[in-house]
């Protein structure tokens, strides 16, 4: 349904060109939840914004292709692109606090999407908004229509955002760290809601997160990104049971386990490199415990360890090329 192929989004800054998204390919099949995981600055949010063509200066999509149901989005006239945003692809953001306009009621903000894309009258849109509010589990929906964002709790605000995103029954919803700013109990509720909506309404979800726990809870398929590149991609069970890439291993090992061995929590040494000064060779090599000399000299490709499981690491070179998901 959504196919991102060899996407490159660069930021042209005073200090040089930063390849925030560097040759990334991601496939999101219909009726699925696909996770994109990585530390801050790995390019996962920029990838999401690229899909909606909302990367703002100094960022620019340099090359690649983004196909929605076979239709190319890159280079689409802005008028046609606007018909896709909020309609076929919608997006929710990390901060439900600041993502809603403080001077309008939440009802109006949700209704706006339907008035815009469905040509609904204001009354119709408000009725539909009540339905949506009910669907996302907002109590007393009629009353909540007239609330302003600051009168709602963080969890409720995120439900409003989801209602807004689902209002036009899009085929894809991009969720950029939707639960990071929420309490753990609220986070569980929101994740549960998203899973339900995916099942009931058939909307695929691109779940952007840094939290492996969220991935395990929600996703069918996972892409692990590091410094602008996909390092590993696999089905959820493969990723957790047959973890290949040292970086993914590191990520999984740094989750505290209640049953695990007591002692120091594992962490990946070092810092994410600056995109302006990437190390030579594999970009994870300076932090990799298993790096060999080659890793510091040339960049590995994506190797297919099994069907649908690709790893960007020389350790798996023997498996042969063709690890691209598409």
């Amino acid at each position, binding site marked *: 349904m959504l196919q991102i192929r060899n996407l490159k989004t660069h*930021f042209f*800054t*005073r*200090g040089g060109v*930063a390849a*925030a998204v560097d040759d990334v390919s991601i496939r999101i099949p219909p009726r699925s939840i696909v996770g994109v995981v990585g530390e*801050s*600055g*790995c*390019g*996962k*949010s*920029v990838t*999401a*914004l690229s899909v909606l063509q909302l*990367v*703002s200066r100094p*960022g620019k999509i340099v090359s690649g292709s983004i196909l929605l149901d076979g239709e190319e989005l890159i280079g689409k006239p802005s008028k046609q692109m606007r018909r896709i945003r909020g309609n076929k692809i919608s997006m929710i*953001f*990390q*901060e439900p606090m600041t993502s809603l306009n403080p001077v309008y009621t939440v009802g109006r903000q949700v209704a706006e999407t339907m008035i815009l894309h469905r040509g609904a009258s204001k009354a119709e849109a408000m009725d539909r908004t009540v339905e949506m509010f009910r669907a996302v589990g907002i109590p007393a929906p009629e009353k909540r229509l007239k609330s302003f964002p600051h009168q709602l709790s963080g969890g409720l605000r995120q439900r409003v955002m989801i209602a807004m995103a689902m209002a036009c029954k899009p085929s894809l919803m991009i969720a*950029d*760290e939707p639960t990071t700013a929420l309490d753990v109990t609220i986070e569980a509720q929101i994740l549960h809601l998203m899973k339900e909506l995916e099942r009931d309404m058939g909307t695929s979800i691109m779940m952007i997160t840094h939290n492996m726990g969220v991935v395990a809870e929600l996703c069918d398929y996972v892409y692990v990104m590091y410094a602008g590149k996909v390092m590993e991609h696999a089905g959820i069970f493969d990723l957790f049971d047959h973890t290949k890439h040292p970086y993914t291993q590191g990520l999984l090992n740094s989750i505290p386990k209640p049953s695990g061995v007591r002692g120091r929590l594992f962490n990946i040494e070092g810092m994410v490199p*600056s*995109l*302006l000064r990437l190390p030579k060779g594999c970009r994870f090599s300076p932090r990799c415990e298993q790096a060999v000399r080659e890793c510091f000299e040339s960049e590995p490709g994506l190797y297919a360890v099994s069907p649908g499981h690709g790893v960007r690491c020389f350790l798996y070179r023997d498996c042969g090329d063709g690890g691209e998901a598409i």
Partner: protein
Amino acid sequence: MNGAEFDLDQELAQRDDATAAGRLKGMLRNNKVAAFSVLVIALIIAASFAAPLYSPYDPNKPSLSERFAPPSRTHWLGCDDLGRDQLVRLIYGARISIVIGLLPTSLSMLLGAALGMISGYVGGKTDFWIMRLADVVLAFPSLLLAMVVSYTLGGGIVSIFIALSAVSWAGTARVIRAQTMSLKEKEFVLAARSIGVRGGVIIFRHILPNCVPSLIVLFTLNIPGAIMNESSLSFLGVGASPPSTSWGLMIYRYKTYLLSYPWLAIAPGMAILIFVLAFNFLGDGVRDALDPYMKD
């Protein structure tokens, strides 16, 4: 807008522009208008203070044979109603604008910073009264308050000096107070307080250094207002008085001859415009460089 996680700008900022001085230098490199303004300001200051060294004429000595002489090779901007060289008078007149632009602004800055930090740090009743006083001062239109102060002190340059210092401290105090209050809750201040460092020491060692960028911004932004107020007061006849020359006073004097000798009044106005504009451009650049909230 680059996505919440993409902190490239921040990273850049940390790399080459860690200090206030570094950021100012960077600003002057990149912002041509601000750099040019610095040049203009420096030129005007140097020219006016070095004037006695090179000026061929006395700015105050009348020469009746040259009354209203038009611009010529000997008198580039002509002569005024008493035959005094206009350009020389303009150059000497800059001194008042410079002194008024810099000194009362510095004084009010010190006052405002001190009161603001005390107000923010001590809080309670002290804070309440200082801020009410600031409210009162800010309620006055600054030009009117300056007029009143200058009335009380009987006019002249010293009274302008005091008047302008008295009106502009309040804005500074408010900004610095707000900043002090937020700094007070920062971990490094809490840490210092928790080990019993005295209030005065905390203010000087921890709070003041963090307020310096704001103070620099406020300083450059306040200068043009002070210069403007001085020229207005002088134009109204409650500011500088003869024989000292000020651009405002010159316009006041020469406006009588506007119809017959318009350049006499046009030139000093142009001088004010250029000088104030240069400070405004510089102030803009400084604010963009130092004020994190104003950065685009």
